C-alpha cells in the first residue's frame, strides 16, 4: 500500500513538473538531439544543448538521398505527399495548395538544391554530394542539408531558408551555429539591398550600422550566408522552387486521387460529403463567423416560437400534449443545429444538419395538420353535442307531455 502511494506521489510530481514546463511556454524538444530549456526569444540567455544526428566529420554511408531516381521521389521523401485525408478534405488541388504550399515549398527548396547540385557533381565528375537530412530520417535535425565527400564524410551542414526574414533570423539563432545558411536568389538580393540601405543610412547619419545588419555583413563576407551553391552555381530562384513544388505535389495529388477514386465503395460518397461540408468553412472566413451567429439566431427564433406556442396554449388554441410536442421539437432542433455547426466531424455535421432541417419541416407541417385534426374533432363534438341535445330534448318532451296536465293554450286574440 505504501509502495503504491509512493508511486502515485512520484507520478503526480512528474506530471506537475511536466505541466509547469508546458504552461510556462517553454518548448521542450525531446527528440534526443536538441533540448531548449529557456525562453526562445532571448538568444543570449538561451541554453542550447544541440546534438546533431549528422555532425561534421561523421561518415554517412549509402544515403537515401542518392538512391532517389527522380526529383519527384526525392521531394516526396523529403516533404511527404498529400494524404488521402487531405484529398478527401479538399477535393481538388487548387483549393488544397494555398494552405499547403508553405510547408511543401520549404522542403522542395532543400530537395531541389540537393537534386540540382548532385546532378552537377555527377556531370563534372565531382565526388561530393548534397544529402537531405529529412530524407535520411532526420526530420527534426537542425541541419537541412549536408555536404558529403566521396568517402561519405560530412563536410558542411546547411540550413535552408527560403525567405529573407527567415534567413536573417537564422543567422542569429544559436541552433544553427556553424551552419551555412542557404536562401533563394531573390532573398539574398533583398538582404543585400536592405544591408546597403542600412549602411548608407548609417553613413549619412554618422552612426554605426546596427548589430543585426553588421552580423549580416559579416555572414555574407565569411560565406556563412551563402551567395552561391557548393558547386559555385547561382542560388536557386524562388520562382523555380514554387513552380517545382506545385508541379511535383500536383502529380502526387493526382496519384492520391487515383487511389481514392479506385475505391468503389461508399467511401466516395462520404468523401464527397466531407468535401462539401469542409470546403465551406475552410475557404470562407465569413462562414466561420457565421456559425455562432447562426446558433444565436436559431436559439432566438426557437425561443420566440416556443413563447408563441405558449401563448396559444394559454389561450386554449392548442392542447398541452401538442404544446409539449412542439417544445420538444424546438429543443431537439436547437440541439441538432448547434451540433451541426459546432461538431468538427463532417459526417456528424451532415447528419445533424439534415436532422435539424427535417425537424424544422415537421414543425412547420405540424401546424396545419394539427389545425385540421382539431377542426375535425371539434366538428365531431359539435355534431355529437347537437344530436345529443335534440335527443335529450325529444325525450324530455315525450316524457313530460305523456303525463303532464294540459298545457295552457294561447287564446286566439294573442295569435302572432
Amino acid at each position, binding site marked *: 500500500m505504501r509502495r503504491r502511494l509512493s508511486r502515485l506521489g512520484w507520478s503526480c510530481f512528474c506530471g506537475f513538473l511536466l505541466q509547469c514546463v508546458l504552461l510556462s511556454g517553454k518548448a521542450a524538444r525531446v527528440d534526443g538531439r536538441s533540448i531548449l530549456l529557456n525562453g526562445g526569444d532571448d538568444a543570449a540567455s538561451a541554453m542550447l544543448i544541440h546534438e546533431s544526428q549528422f555532425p561534421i566529420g561523421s561518415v554517412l554511408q549509402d544515403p537515401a538521398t542518392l538512391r532517389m531516381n527522380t526529383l519527384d521521389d526525392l521531394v516526396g521523401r523529403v516533404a511527404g505527399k498529400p494524404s488521402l485525408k487531405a484529398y478527401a478534405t479538399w477535393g481538388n488541388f487548387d483549393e488544397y495548395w494555398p494552405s499547403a504550399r508553405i510547408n511543401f515549398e520549404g522542403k522542395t527548396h532543400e530537395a531541389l538544391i540537393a537534386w540540382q547540385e548532385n546532378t552537377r557533381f555527377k556531370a563534372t565528375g565531382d565526388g561530393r554530394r548534397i544529402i537531405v537530412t529529412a530524407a535520411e530520417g532526420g526530420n527534426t535535425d537542425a541541419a537541412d542539408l549536408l555536404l558529403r565527400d566521396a568517402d561519405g564524410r560530412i563536410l558542411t551542414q546547411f540550413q535552408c531558408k527560403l525567405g529573407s526574414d527567415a534567413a536573417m533570423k537564422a543567422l542569429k539563432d544559436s541552433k544553427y551555429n556553424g551552419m551555412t545558411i542557404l536562401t533563394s536568389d531573390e532573398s539574398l538580393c533583398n538582404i543585400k539591398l536592405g544591408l546597403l540601405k542600412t549602411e548608407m543610412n548609417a553613413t549619412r547619419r554618422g552612426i554605426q550600422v546596427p548589430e543585426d545588419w553588421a552580423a549580416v555583413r559579416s555572414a555574407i563576407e565569411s560565406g556563412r550566408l551563402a551567395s552561391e551553391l557548393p558547386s559555385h552555381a547561382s542560388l536557386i530562384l524562388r520562382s523555380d522552387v514554387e513552380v517545382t513544388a506545385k508541379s511535383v505535389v500536383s502529380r502526387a495529388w493526382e496519384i492520391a486521387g487515383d487511389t481514392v477514386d479506385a475505391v468503389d465503395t461508399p467511401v466516395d460518397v462520404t468523401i464527397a460529403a466531407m468535401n462539401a461540408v469542409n470546403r465551406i468553412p475552410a475557404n470562407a472566413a465569413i462562414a466561420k463567423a457565421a456559425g455562432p451567429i447562426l446558433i444565436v439566431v436559431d436559439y432566438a427564433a426557437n425561443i420566440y416560437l416556443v413563447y408563441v406556442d405558449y401563448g396559444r396554449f394559454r389561450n386554449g388554441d392548442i392542447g398541452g400534449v401538442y404544446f409539449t410536442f412542439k417544445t420538444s421539437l424546438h429543443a431537439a432542433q436547437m440541439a441538432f443545429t448547434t451540433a451541426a455547426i459546432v461538431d468538427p466531424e463532417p459526417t456528424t455535421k451532415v447528419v445533424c444538419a439534415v436532422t435539424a432541417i427535417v425537424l424544422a419541416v415537421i414543425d412547420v407541417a405540424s401546424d396545419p395538420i394539427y389545425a385540421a385534426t382539431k377542426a375535425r374533432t371539434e366538428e365531431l363534438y359539435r355534431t355529437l353535442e347537437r344530436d345529443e341535445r*335534440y335527443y335529450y330534448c325529444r325525450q*324530455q*318532451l315525450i316524457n*313530460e*307531455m*305523456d303525463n303532464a296536465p294540459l298545457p295552457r293554450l*294561447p287564446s286566439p286574440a294573442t295569435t*302572432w
Partner: protein
Amino acid sequence: MIVDIVNALTTKAETERMDIDRDVTAKAGADKNGGNVDPAAQSPGPYQSDIKRLNELQEAIATADFRHWAALAMDQNVADQVEKVQADLQASAEKALRFQQRRYNLWALQQIHVAEDAPNWPERLGQIDSRFLHPSVAALYSMVNDSLVKGLDDHAQRPAALRRLINQDKVHLERF
C-alpha cells in the same frame, strides 16, 4: 222508458269516445316511435279531427240535457253514468289536445334541427309558432335562432333574415 233511452244514448256516446280514444292513442304511439309528424296539408289534422268529434259528442250530450232527464227518472245510477260520460269525453279531448301539441313540438324539433344547416333557416324557423312549444323546445328554438342570427357576418343580411323569419306564415296547431 227514460232510463232505457238515456242508457242507450250514453252507451253509444261512450263507445264512440272509446273509438276516438283508441285512435288517438295509436297515433300518439306512432309519434313516440318516430312516425311521420308532418302537418296535414290542410286543417283539420288527424288529432284535430278527433278533437272535433269529441267536442261534437260533448255538445250533443249537453244539448240533450241528460242530467235533466236523469233527474226526472229519479235514478241515481243514470245520473252518475251521464256525469261519467261527460268527464270521459273531457279527458279524451284533453288527451287528444296534448298529443296534438306533442306532435307539433316533435315536428318543430325536426324543423329546428334542419334549420341549423339550411340556407333557408329563416323560413324554417319562421313557420314555427313558438306559443305552442314546450319549454325545452322553446329554449332550443331560441338558442338556434340566436346563433344563426349572430352567424350572419354581413350586418345588412340580418334585417333581411329577420324579416323573412317574421313574415313567414305560421303552421297552426289545427293542421296536426
